[in-house]
């Protein structure tokens, strides 16, 4: 439970990060190196699937904001999906729901990011 694993999948030209576990200030470093690394390598159509992520702190939001800024600068698409209620709450109180496109399912998110 304490670890964060990030699996990468590719679907219709979209890079999907499937995050499982806890995004805290320690594991956010892994998220940052994986996601920001891929964006800097040229991924501009990106989906982050949070179906199996029940916890995110401001350290994780920091990485998501960095990713969002870089993808916007590259004129790409960044879509989040599968948000659990505990994670949605954190997005709500920080105004992040207004900053990012959020879809229920991964299929919808991939279609939207394509």
């Amino acid at each position: 439970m304490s670890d964060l694993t990030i699996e990468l999948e590719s679907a219709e030209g979209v890079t999907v990060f499937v995050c499982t576990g806890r995004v805290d200030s320690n594991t956010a470093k892994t998220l940052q190196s994986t996601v920001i690394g891929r964006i800097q390598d040229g991924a501009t159509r990106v989906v982050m699937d949070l179906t199996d992520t029940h916890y995110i702190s401001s350290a994780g939001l920091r990485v998501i904001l960095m990713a969002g800024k870089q993808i916007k600068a590259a004129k790409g698409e960044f879509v989040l999906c599968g948000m659990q209620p505990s994670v949605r709450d954190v997005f709500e109180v920080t105004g992040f729901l207004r900053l990012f496109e959020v879809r229920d399912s991964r299929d919808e998110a991939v279609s939207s990011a394509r």
Partner: protein
Amino acid sequence: MVAAVAFTLTDADDLTGLLDAVEAFGDAEGLPMKTVMTLNLLLEELVTNAIQYGAGPDGAKVSVRAELRGGAVHAAVRDNGSAFNPLLHEAPDLDASIDDRPIGGLGLHIVRQMAQNPVYERQGTENVLTFELTIEEG
């Protein structure tokens, strides 16, 4: 013996142990996942802030206590840093566009928004922040 969390951190790497201890406390008390996640979130934000910015001359020492009383979790975070009231921290502009939102600065905003009845006190050489969380199903 009533289940409770009593944990001391001196380094950011200790955080994983704290979050695991809070989850074990939640399991022991049968707390809903949402309450456990919110408790972890508030503790993480307060603890990382204290370790990062508030370390005393001999390094940081942050103690966390949490227990269930009267249908609510009562938590206290105590650190040895210089006097700092996290409840007076400047709020971010939530209406700003993604280009204008600064990276960082959200942790204490989350605490102010989600902690119930938060109280800050300077007690001797320590900052003490207490808050409550009512049990939330979901």
